[in-house]
Every structure is written in structure tokens, then in C-alpha cells.
């Protein structure tokens, strides 16, 4: 069966693999390079838990044909920490108790990072908009919104 060679940057490192025709980026990340941080929640584009950044833009990896990221940069939650140090967003999510089951957390963090990378001081409405493509069934969203706001303000206090 014909496979296509694919190379891209994954959290700053070059990776190479062979993909079957039609393979989506979520499968490529999880099954071919073992990055389990993006999750499968629907395969429909509705839940956001597979969210990654492609060249800095928020994308749904389940709806991305893997070979379209050839030569591009893909960031996942696996690359968010700086060495052993948590990213301010990760710290803020923890401090605000913004995760329960934790399954939406990787996608939420990527959506929040996409926002703060472009807009370091967002309003509450902008935060709400930024995470609107991500479903959380546990928290009621309030602690997640507070976490993003507190990461943006640089403080560790609850917003």
C-alpha cells in the first residue's frame, strides 16, 4: 500500500514518517510519533480537544490532512513546557483548578495559547471567544476563563 513520506517540525524538532493516504494529523501525531497530548473527542471538528498550532495558528488536527503540514511547524501541548518549567498558562490552569477529568485540557491550553500569543491582554469576551470551539463537560467554563485571564495578567491570583 502506497504511503507518503512526510516531514515537519514537531515542537521544534524535525520529524519524518510515512503516512497512509487520508491520514489525519491527529493520528499521525498520536500513532506515528507517539505524542498523546492531542486527544480524540469527535473527529468532527466539534470538541476542540485535538487542537494544535500549525505555524502558530490554532487548527483541529483531526480535520487536518497530515500531508498538508509538510515543512510546517506543529505545536502541541507536549511542547508547551519550557524544560521542567510549566508555561504560565499551565500554572494558571492548575492554580484555578481549571481541569477536572483533564480530557479537554490539552485543547483548551492550545486555544488559550493561540490567543495569548497574539493578544497578551485579552478581555473576558475575547477569552470566551478564544475557547468557544472547545467543549468542556466538567467545569462549567468559569475556572478556565479565569485561568486564561490570570495567565494574561501574569498574576497567580484568581481573577
Amino acid at each position, binding site marked *: 500500500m502506497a504511503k507518503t513520506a512526510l516531514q515537519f517540525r514537531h515542537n521544534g524538532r524535525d520529524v519524518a514518517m510515512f503516512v497512509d493516504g487520508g491520514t489525519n494529523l491527529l493520528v499521525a501525531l498520536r500513532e506515528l510519533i507517539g505524542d498523546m497530548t492531542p486527544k480524540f473527542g*469527535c473527529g*468532527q471538528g*466539534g*470538541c476542540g480537544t485535538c487542537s494544535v498550532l500549525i505555524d502558530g495558528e490554532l487548527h483541529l488536527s483531526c480535520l487536518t490532512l497530515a500531508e498538508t503540514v509538510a515543512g510546517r511547524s506543529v505545536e502541541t501541548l507536549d511542547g508547551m513546557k519550557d524544560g521542567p518549567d510549566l508555561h504560565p498558562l499551565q500554572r494558571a490552569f492548575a492554580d484555578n*483548578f481549571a*481541569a*477536572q*477529568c*483533564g*480530557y479537554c485540557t490539552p485543547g483548551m491550553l492550545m486555544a488559550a495559547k493561540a490567543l495569548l500569543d497574539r493578544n497578551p491582554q485579552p478581555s473576558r469576551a475575547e*477569552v*470566551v*471567544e478564544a*475557547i*468557544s470551539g472547545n*467543549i468542556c*463537560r*466538567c*467545569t*462549567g*467554563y*468559569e*475556572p*478556565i*476563563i479565569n485561568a486564561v485571564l490570570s495567565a494574561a495578567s501574569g498574576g497567580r491570583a484568581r481573577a
Partner: protein
Amino acid sequence: MARHRGRGIASVNYPVGMNLGGDPSQALVHSNPSGKFTVALSSIDLGQGMKSVTRQICAETLGVPVEDVYVDTADSDTGPHCMGSFASRGTHRVGNAVMAAAREARGVMMEAAAEELEVNATDLETDGRGNIHVKGAPHRSISTKDVAIAAQFKQGKTISGRGIFLVPLSDVDPETGEMSPATCYAHACLVAEVEVDDETGEVAMVRMDSAYELGRALNPRLVEQQLVGGAWMGVSHALYETPEPYYPDPGHGPRDFVEYLMPGPGDICPHDIAVLERPAPDGPFGAKGPGEMCANPVLPAIANAIFNAVGVRIDDLPITPEKVLRAIKAQGGARPQPRR
């Protein structure tokens, strides 16, 4: 066109644990030679915080810092039997099992410490910071680490404990329904304020105020997680979600998260919560279980608030804009009730 505000209330109680009991859970607690404890369970953490709350229960019972305890869940080879994570039974049933196991392990730990300090175990106490000392004489002290080393390599003792918690099964009288469904109950009362659009039937949440009585709040942050998230789910159940929008007609079922309606981050409202703690006599440190009941008062409180706002009673869940609009039209327009 007008938008009308209204407030409604509901008060509820909720049984803790499987109905009729008969739902055991077990726990094993043991120390490694450095005095760090592992709790082995087969109970599931669905996000509700099972690992975290049992960790605190274990640490409190042992008298060690929480950092010295790690909870390992859900391995059928190493974790002893648990009925499962449902029926608000986690904190109450598993918590009690962990407490029992930790109590037994503490007994061994205190005996081992007593042997090292050459005193009676009954004369010892833990300081919660990793030390055991003679009551009233803090300088006659030994660390839990040193106790663990001594127990393992010198005394040949295993600092471990087994725990089980079982509410004995009760029977049901088929005719009268006489039974013992639960040993303790949590309570709540919630006030919902809504705004209803009388031309479209749309209902927007304005705010919620609530009081929940949950026995001991073992970890207020975890309680808050359950209550905030649970109230959100209550709003969702009240106004939005169903896989059968035309029930009992089974058609037009949602297939994705666009068609399955749940409130988004732009639909939430402020929620001010008070937590009351009336300890349950048989709960671990008096705890009951907030996980399930937190959504329940929200549904009727919203329905009652809609009545207060526009004078229509919607007795079918979910309360869609269509149902509200049909009812408003049927009564010839909104009839706001006295403002509360």
C-alpha cells in the same frame, strides 16, 4: 417586544451511595521504606477528584503530610474491589475504606515508633509534618521515615492496612416500599434568575445563588469544582440538551456538538455558593458527596423563574425557546408575576 426577568427557587436532598447499600469498596495502604505511602484502589477518577480526596483522607488519618501519600487507582491486579464510581459513593464509601486502611497502617506505624522510642504507642502522637513524638514532649520524636526504615529492616513489620466499607444491603417491601435506601443525605437550595424574551421564547441565565449542605467539605476547591460544573450541567439539562429533541418521536437526533446543545462559555452566569457542613455520622470525617446532586436544584429553579418572569409553566424538559414561545402565545402574551 420585551425581555422579562424572574426568579425561582428549588430545594432538594440527595441520597449518598448506592440505593439500599450492599455496595462495598476496599482500599489497601502501605508504606515504602522511606515512609511514603501508597493507596491502592480500583476506584475510578472520572474527573471528580477521587484520587485527590482519598489522598487527603489517608494523610489526615495517618497523620502525615499529604505529599507523603500517593493514590494509585484502577488496576484490577493491584487494586482491591470497588463497586465503581457512581451513585455519589466515591467520597463516602471509598473514603471510609481508605480511612479504615489508613487507621490500620497508622496502628502499625505507631507501634513501630513506640518500639524505637521505647514508650507505649498510646503515648505517641503525629504532628502531621512527618514526625511522631511523645505527647507533651515534642523533643522525644522520630520521623516517619526512620520509623519506616526501622519497621522494614529492623523490626520486620509491614506498615500497611486494609480497609473495607460496606453499608449492609437492605431489602424492599414490595407493597409498602419500606426500605433503607441510604445512610445519609446531602441538601441544597438554589435561586435562579433568568431573562425571558417574550417574542422568541429564549431564556438567558442572569445569576444563581445557592446553598449546599454536603457534610464535611473535605477539600473546598474540589467541592467548588463539582458545584460550579454541576450547576452548569443543571442549566444545560434545564434549557438545552437531549439526544431526542422530539421525544417520544425518535427522529432528528443530534450527531455532533453543534447539534447537541450545551451552554457555551458565553452562556454562563455568576453563581454565588454557600457551603454548609453538617457532618454525616458515618461519613469519612463527616463527608457526604456533592458530585451528583449539584445539578438537580437548578432545573426546577429555572422552570420556576421562567414562570415568575412571563407567567408560563413549562413542565417538559428541556425548556426550549419553542416550548416557552408556544406557552406564551397560548396564554395570549407574557404575564409577569410579582417581582421577587
